[in-house]
């Protein structure tokens, strides 16, 4: 499966990573190379094989759906690049 420039542009956008137009060709080539390596997986007969979702056969623990922690606004905002009046601040989202 070879990736073309348009697909590379689309993937970069989905990943929310800005890639300059003149870099897309190069990116497409790199991604194609890696995907080519993955093509080997098509040789494996996986009929009837369950996809692995958990490597150790154990049930996830459950707990009561209650608040166990909180009231730490200062700590939560302490690493924010921009926070105002107790909120994370971001550029305008809605016009």
């Amino acid at each position: 499966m070879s990736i073309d420039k348009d697909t590379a542009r689309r993937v970069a956008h989905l990943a929310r990573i800005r890639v300059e137009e003149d870099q897309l060709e190069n990116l497409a080539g790199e991604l194609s190379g890696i995907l080519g390596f993955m093509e080997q997986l098509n040789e494996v007969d996986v009929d009837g094989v369950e996809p692995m979702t958990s490597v150790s056969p154990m049930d996830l623990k459950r707990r009561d759906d209650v608040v166990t922690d909180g009231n730490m606004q200062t700590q939560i905002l302490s690493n924010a690049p921009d926070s105002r009046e107790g909120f994370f601040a971001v550029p305008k989202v809605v016009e």
Partner: protein
Amino acid sequence: MSNLSKLTITEARDKMRAKDITSVELTQSCLDAIDAADALNAYCAKTPEIALTQAAAADARIAAGAAPDMCGIPLGIKDLFCTKGVQSQAGSNILAGFKPEYESTVTTNLWDAGAVMLGKLNMDEFAMGSSNETSAYGSVVSPWQREGSNTPLTPGGSSGGSAAAVAADLCLGATGTDTGGSIRQPAAFTGIVGVKPTYGRCSRWGVVAFASSLDQAGPMTKTVRDSAIMLEAMSGHDAKDSTSADFAVPNFEAMLTGDIKGKKIGIPKEYHLEGMPAEIEKFWADGADMLKSAGAEMVDVSLPHTKYALPAYYVLAPAEASSNLARYDGVRYGHRATLEAGDGIDEMYMRTRAEGFGAEVQRRVMIGTYVLSAGFYDAYYRRAQRVRTLIKKDFDDVFAAGVDAILTPATPSAAFGLGEMADADPIKMYLNDVFTVTVNLAGLPGVAVPTGLDAQNLPLGLQLIGRPWEEGDMLNIAYALEQSAGFSSKPNKWW
């Protein structure tokens, strides 16, 4: 400068208990060694005040009696672990300036046991790399050099700072993390011991996530016994990690009897790679002979899907990474790009991530995004998950046939030079993990043990793969191998 930093954890523990040395003296020796080793670039943050405060507290605890084994032991901590109030950047510019408000469970366990933090250790960005060259802090230089050459070599990766620091006696032990081989490959490249525990043995809480179904923390130390001691202190169930196992943690050190009579050790035929250097083949055969002489029975085994482990890994790990790394968006922590007039939130995300992530991380996030995208999910991601099931079944079958552990080379070569792979295809770098990645996919424990030097005087290691939750038995076999190999070489100090 005293030589105390050269001690093993075991020796230091015994000397502190016998009141021959104090943790403050030991810690100061490590701090001095660290300050004299900036050329290695192993530490990305030094925390001498924290270290000396913890050391003084450890001395008081030892004086009061009944202190844990790790009490007063100075350690380096991989930058992937969140440490409260101390920079934790995962080797990435996107986490520039990040100082967590919380402490990871593994480091909390270590500090509760009285261990001392010397600083944070350099690593490949987000643990994505096999040479420590993708770090925002720059490459780590291995303390090892080829005979008669001063070419700077890689310590391996991603836990390259951890490996270099232990090998150069800049700490007594270090934490590492292993998603595809990131503890075992650098341990092998630097002549130290590195353990990747069974998935779920160590809590992942507070460890910056790369690929959550594969990531495990583990110890990197000078000896197998030291790893046994340190692993016990790191391990244990944690309600904050839903995949952490609620099993009692054994006393691993007590299991190191060195008696491996009657143990069945498998040699997987698929690990004889085409084009593998004869030297590696010979080291592997020598290791098998050592275990045989110690009373183990060597058996040929087959792990038929080995060949598909790397391609499956390079679907699954980037897929999980693309999801985990979505959180770096310039909103809650770390770097945010400077915006231009009129830029909205999408531009903020895209500029921030382009500036903050290095090339390898960007490549893997995009591969992951692609294999998870509509129309390709079944062809890549779901297929890779099925292949993962088959890879695990290969191991299950071998263990069901009575095999106690599997012996393989740890790496397909000795350490290479920094920059030597710069122009290579990314796949060539990925091949470093060919012997280690199967273990992560199957969730098994693995350990790299140094067994000798190659023709250029560089260390080589062998890997033992254990049954799930049988780290103690695996470490005992590793201990027997270590005793037989008698590896005691250290790098010649040039830094």
